[in-house]
């Protein structure tokens, strides 16, 4: 059956604390951190962006899987911060993996769920025998307007997942999506920073789509909360996934391991996939994972994933999510502004 043959992650080394951002804008940092459930976020270095993060994550995935990159037939990179407006990030990834030219690629954009949309596409191509292995990437170096609430949660990181039929470390048993036209968050062409519908982002957007998406897939597959060992929900902040879990009746201990949001915050297109990667780092063969991503605009992709024995043959080859979380250097707001080009005079 179709499944994950390998996965790899990348998180930049720099972190800025919620309290440090709050200090600059005169907000109460302690209260904000506790309220949002976000304590520090990852920040890319001055020479890091979606193409470099995607390549690092993808190289880790190839090494983990032990596959020949020449077997990759499709690369889809989901992001809302692609380095070029026109020129696919996947072309750069393909070259940096030494793939062949016998390959298709495209960039995806669906706010924070573009990466899981890429997983679904590669599943289709693999199952219809059009390609042997597909590479799906979710990566972002998200930016919030200085002083905006999003500045506390817009973080950087990426996850690459190789989808194939042979020697899968986890089988993808089912997937379905839930999509509506909901203007909770957007960015117009040529604008540097996104806009959002503030309070509108909760109930009608995140909770409705993740909740309905989860119920839909359980109904389709005749499963219940009790059938799963781990749950992963998109993490725009530390509060939403916990509240979602409560609404659906998910025991807290089944959700806890995926909550990378506390240490690195929202990696946008990489967010739910980063939670999945952390669960795959620790899960046992036979464990069942239920994941729901969310993308503003809006939609959700739900997945049922079963961990296979094969996973034991691959661990220890590349850094885990926790390895990347542990590798960190704190920066202050002035360094953050310098790295993120918030100071326009510096090229």
């Amino acid at each position: 059956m179709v499944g994950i043959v390998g996965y790899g992650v990348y998180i930049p080394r720099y972190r800025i604390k919620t309290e440090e951002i709050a200090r600059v804008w005169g907000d109460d940092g302690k209260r904000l951190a506790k309220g949002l459930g976000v304590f520090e976020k990852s920040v890319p270095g001055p020479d890091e962006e979606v193409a470099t993060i995607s390549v690092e994550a993808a190289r880790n995935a190839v090494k983990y899987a032990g596959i020949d990159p020449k077997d990759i037939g499709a690369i889809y990179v989901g992001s809302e911060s692609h380095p070029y407006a026109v020129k696919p990030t996947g072309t750069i990834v393909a070259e940096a993996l030494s793939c062949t030219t016998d390959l298709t690629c495209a960039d995806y954009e669906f706010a924070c769920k573009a990466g899981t949309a890429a997983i679904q596409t590669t599943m289709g191509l693999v199952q219809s025998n059009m390609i042997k292995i597909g590479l799906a990437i979710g990566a972002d170096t998200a930016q919030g307007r200085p002083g905006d609430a999003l500045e506390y949660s817009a973080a950087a990181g990426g996850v690459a997942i190789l989808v194939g039929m042979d020697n899968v470390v986890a089988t993808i048993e089912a997937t379905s999506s839930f999509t509506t036209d909901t203007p909770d968050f957007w960015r117009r062409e040529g604008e540097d920073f996104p806009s959002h519908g503030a309070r509108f982002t909760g109930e009608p957007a995140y909770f409705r789509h993740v909740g309905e998406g989860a119920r839909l897939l359980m109904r389709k597959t005749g499963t219940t909360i009790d059938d799963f060992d781990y749950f992963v929900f998109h993490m725009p902040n530390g509060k939403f996934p916990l509240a979602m879990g409560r609404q659906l009746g998910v025991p807290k201990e089944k959700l806890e391991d995926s909550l990378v949001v506390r240490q690195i915050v929202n990696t946008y297109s990489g967010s739910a996939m980063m939670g999945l990667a952390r669960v795959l780092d620790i899960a046992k063969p036979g464990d069942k994972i239920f994941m729901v991503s969310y993308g503003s605009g809006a939609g959700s992709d739900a997945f049922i994933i079963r961990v296979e024995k094969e996973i034991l043959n691959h661990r220890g080859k590349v850094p885990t999510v926790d390895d990347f979380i542990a590798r960190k250097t704190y920066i202050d707001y002035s360094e953050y502004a310098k790295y993120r080009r918030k100071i326009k005079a510096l090229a």
Partner: protein
Amino acid sequence: MGEQGVAHVWRKLRAIYNIEGNHCKTCDSYFFPPRLVCPNCRRKGQLEEHHFKGLGKVHTFAIVRQAPEGFKRQVPYIVAQVELDEGVRLTAQIVNCDPEDVEIGMRVRACFRKITEYGERGIIVYGYKFEPVLKVTGHPYP
């Protein structure tokens, strides 16, 4: 001048993305950047493509505090001569390392970074830099 640098960069893409050079089967020497003929063996040389593993150590280094245009946001940064395990030396930036922590002999691995860009409208050039080797715990729980 959006097209500036395009041809020059495009010819070298694969070599600088993946540290691809060559190896002479006759004298067992490695070369980066790739050579057209082996300088040791000349006509007797037998060159084959070689994808360097990207692992090596810092041979020598300098800290850049006065940077040229396009690199000012990164100041201060480390430029080093890295000796790859295959024996080839190349010049590259060391990232994910503070200037006070770099030392001769330090183990490093190649990583993929943005090198420069030709203005706001031009192409972006990517390639190798090096970083301290990252600890791999693999599987943190029993």
